[in-house]
Structures are given as structure tokens and as C-alpha cells.
């Protein structure tokens, strides 16, 4: 492939005077699914948020489909409208029904009439098996349902790239599977995805590549199965061991 869909080069970012990302290089090709793993506080969310400038980087370059991301409002709006973002805590708009949540960006960014955008929104929701939730308000839904609506909201604009920040970690274990199912479904459609998740099974089955990040730098990356089964770096190995024992505990 000629040019990666997402190219991150020398990214540094932080909060106040605390540096969180200390020079991150990462690329995602078209259609590629990349899983980011890493301990709590390592900067995974910050990395994801930097891509559509939800957090302003300190330095470094981010390119989406060749276009340099910067703070120019119209550039930002265009780039954000081509990226879907799914938050750990769903962040749905509680005063709107699910379908309004999903349709809103089509109306505001694509300038589609309400009816048409709701039609598209409904078809995305049905595709994810949540069509019957269209008229419900977010706070009437379970966490798993809210997250699936949030995924539909991110997909409504048919984004080039889908970013997901631990989409299942706020959920009770018994609610996770329905969101993981949805993730498999989205992954199968060939959309480019960058996912922070500790669902190792999902990573193994669906990801092309796994990136392990610790203390603001990428420690190891490579073919998903390779990294998960035969990590080369000791830090990665330790982390995976702990993760698997945690998952084991949760299952018993």
C-alpha cells in the first residue's frame, strides 16, 4: 500500500507540565485493525485522543489519509468527521433518543435532512442489531446497549478510521460479550480500526497487529498472534501474564 491511513510521528503530549506521551511513532494501514495494549496510566487514552486533537499534542505529526492534522477549525472538523471515536464511558447525549444520537452528526456535518439521516442511522443500528433501541434514551439502556449505540454513532458517518478506547472495560463481565460481538462484526467489515482493549481473545482473533505501550512509548509491536504468544520484550511478557491471570480470575 502506498501511504498509511494514519501516520503518527514523534508524538509528544501531556497535561500541564507532565509529559505523558514521550515520542510515539505509529501507523495504521487502510483496512488494518490494530490493538493497543498497556498498563493503566501508560498514555493509551491520551494517544487515541491526540489523533483527532481532542487532546492537543505538544509536538510531532499526525496525518490522516495524508492530511496533516492541525488546530485550524475547518481542517479539524473535516478530519473529525472522517474519524469515529468510541469512549470508555460511552458519552452518549442523554437528552436525545438513541437514534438522534446516531443521526446528529449526519445532520450537522453532512447537512442531511433529518429524515434521511435518521434513515441512515436506523440502518446502521439495525446492522448492529440494536434497531429496537432507536426510540430509547441512553439512560434507559444497559451499559452494553449504550456502548453499542455509541459504536453506531461513531459508524454513522462511515468513518475512514474507527478509534475505540477500552470500549468494554466499564462494563460488567456479563455485559461485555455483546459489545465484543459488535466489535467482531465491525472488524469483519474491513474498516480500519485502532482499539485500546484488554480483550486478549478479541485481539488474537481479529487484530492484524498489536502495539504494547508503556510509560508513554511503544515498547513492542508486531503481528497480533506473535506479540501475544511470543512477546520479545520482558515488560510485554509480564504485562500479558498479569492480564491473563486477571481474566482467569474474572472467569472463575
Amino acid at each position, binding site marked *: 500500500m502506498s501511504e498509511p491511513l494514519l501516520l503518527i510521528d514523534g508524538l509528544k503530549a501531556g497535561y500541564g507540565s507532565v509529559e505523558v506521551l514521550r515520542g510515539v511513532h505509529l501507523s495504521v494501514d487502510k483496512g488494518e485493525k490494530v490493538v493497543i495494549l498497556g498498563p493503566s496510566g501508560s498514555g493509551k487514552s491520551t494517544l487515541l*485522543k491526540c489523533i*483527532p486533537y*481532542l487532546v492537543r499534542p505538544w509536538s510531532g505529526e499526525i496525518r490522516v489519509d495524508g492530511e496533516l492534522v492541525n488546530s485550524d*477549525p475547518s481542517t*479539524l*472538523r*473535516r478530519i*473529525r*468527521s472522517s*474519524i469515529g*471515536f468510541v*469512549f470508555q*464511558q460511552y*458519552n*452518549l*447525549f*442523554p*437528552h436525545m433518543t438513541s437514534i438522534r444520537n446516531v443521526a*446528529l*452528526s449526519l445532520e*450537522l*456535518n453532512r447537512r442531511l435532512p433529518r429524515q434521511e439521516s435518521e434513515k441512515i442511522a436506523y440502518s446502521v443500528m439495525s446492522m448492529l442489531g440494536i434497531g429496537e433501541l432507536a426510540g*430509547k*434514551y*441512553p*439512560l*434507559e*439502556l444497559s451499559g452494553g446497549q449504550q456502548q453499542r449505540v455509541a459504536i453506531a*454513532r461513531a459508524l454513522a*458517518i462511515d468513518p475512514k478510521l474507527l478509534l475505540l478506547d477500552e470500549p468494554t472495560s466499564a462494563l460488567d463481565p456479563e455485559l461485555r460479550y455483546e459489545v465484543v460481538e459488535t466489535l467482531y462484526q465491525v472488524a469483519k467489515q474491513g474498516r480500519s480500526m485502532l482499539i485500546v482493549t484488554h480483550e486478549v481473545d478479541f485481539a488474537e482473533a481479529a487484530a492484524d497487529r498489536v502495539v504494547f505501550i508503556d510509560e508513554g512509548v511503544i515498547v513492542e509491536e508486531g503481528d497480533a498472534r506473535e506479540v501475544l504468544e511470543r512477546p520479545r520484550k520482558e515488560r510485554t511478557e509480564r504485562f500479558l501474564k498479569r492480564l491473563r491471570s486477571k481474566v482467569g480470575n474474572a472467569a472463575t
Partner: protein
Amino acid sequence: MDLNRFLFEILPYLAEGIPVTLQLTVLSFALGLALGSLLAAARVFGSAPLSVVARSYIEFFRGTPLLVQIFFIYFGLPALGVKLDAFTASIVAIGLNSASYQAELLRSAIKSIPEEQYLAAESLGMSTLQTYRHIIFPQAIRVATPALVNEFVALVKYTSLASIIGVAELFRKTEYMVSYTFMPEIYLVAAAIYLAICLPTSQFAKTLESKYAIPGFKRALI
């Protein structure tokens, strides 16, 4: 007291004050809401100096007695060349005062909307204006409604202060009737009328609130 006299003389006389009381309340509340929104906007979105101006205004009107403000606007402003009749002066004074309270409760309602809502809106490519219009304000106004209704009900009672500069509202009428009949129990009738205005207003607000409440919101809080 004699029932006939009460029904055909006292009550009708007091009742003449009710529309005046209601007009004072509604108009000063509306003035307070309009100015309060501007002040809240100045504090939330304004530049530093603008925000300081708004804040000083709010501190001043909250930190001085309403009665003093009414006197100043009615008796003090003419010295500066602005002469208002008692009714208008009352509305202006109560409205300017209420604006300071309404500004603060609107501001805190806006501030109560979590940062994540802004992030989600931004992530969808919404402009700042769209974010406030479609996401923040509709939620903030629901948060603010109960407090706004409280403020309205409080104003019903505060308008009785307008009697002091001679506005013929409910309390002024009551006082007149008491001094005319020497029956202080008429104060109780006035109190009952105030209550009869305030209680249904609160009740109406509760209905409105539950009608426009964000579905599932209460459940989520519990």
C-alpha cells in the same frame, strides 16, 4: 370577622392587588432571565475583563439589600436624571436583583455538564456553537429549571417590597385594608393568597419538570 363584609368588601379589594403582584413577578422575572443569561454568558464565555464586570455586578446585587436597591432606583436615580414611576422602578429593581441570582444558577447549570459531553461533541466534528446549541444548553436548561422556578416563587414574595414605594400590589392593598378596618387578621388572608399563588406554581413546575426530564435520569442518579 363578618362573612359578608369579608366576601364583598375585603376580599375583592385585596384581589385587585393580585394582578399587579403577578405583573411585577412576571416582568421582573423576565428581565432577570434576559439579563441573567447575558451575565452568565459573560462569565462562561467572556474575556477576562468582561467576566470580572459580570462577577462584580453579581456580587453587588447579591450583597446589598433588595430594599436598598428599590429605594435607590426609585428615589436615587431621579437625581441622576432618570425618573421611573413606582411600578417600573420596582420591576427594574427586582429584575436587576434577580438577574444576579439567575446568572449564577444558569452558570452553574452550564458548568454541571460533564467535560465528556464536550469531548463527544467535538469528536463528531461539531463546532463550538453547535456543541452548545445541541448538546450543552438543552441539558443545562433542564438542570436549571427547578432553581429557576424557585426563583420565580421567591419573586412572588419579594414583590411585596414594592408596597413601600406605593405600588398598589397585594400587600399594599392589605396594609391599607388593615389600617382602614383595624383588623390585623387580614394579614393572614394576604398570606393565604400568596400561598395560593406559590403552591400551584411549584406544582406546575414539578409537572413540567417531569414532562421534560431526561428519561432514565433519576434512575441513573439513584
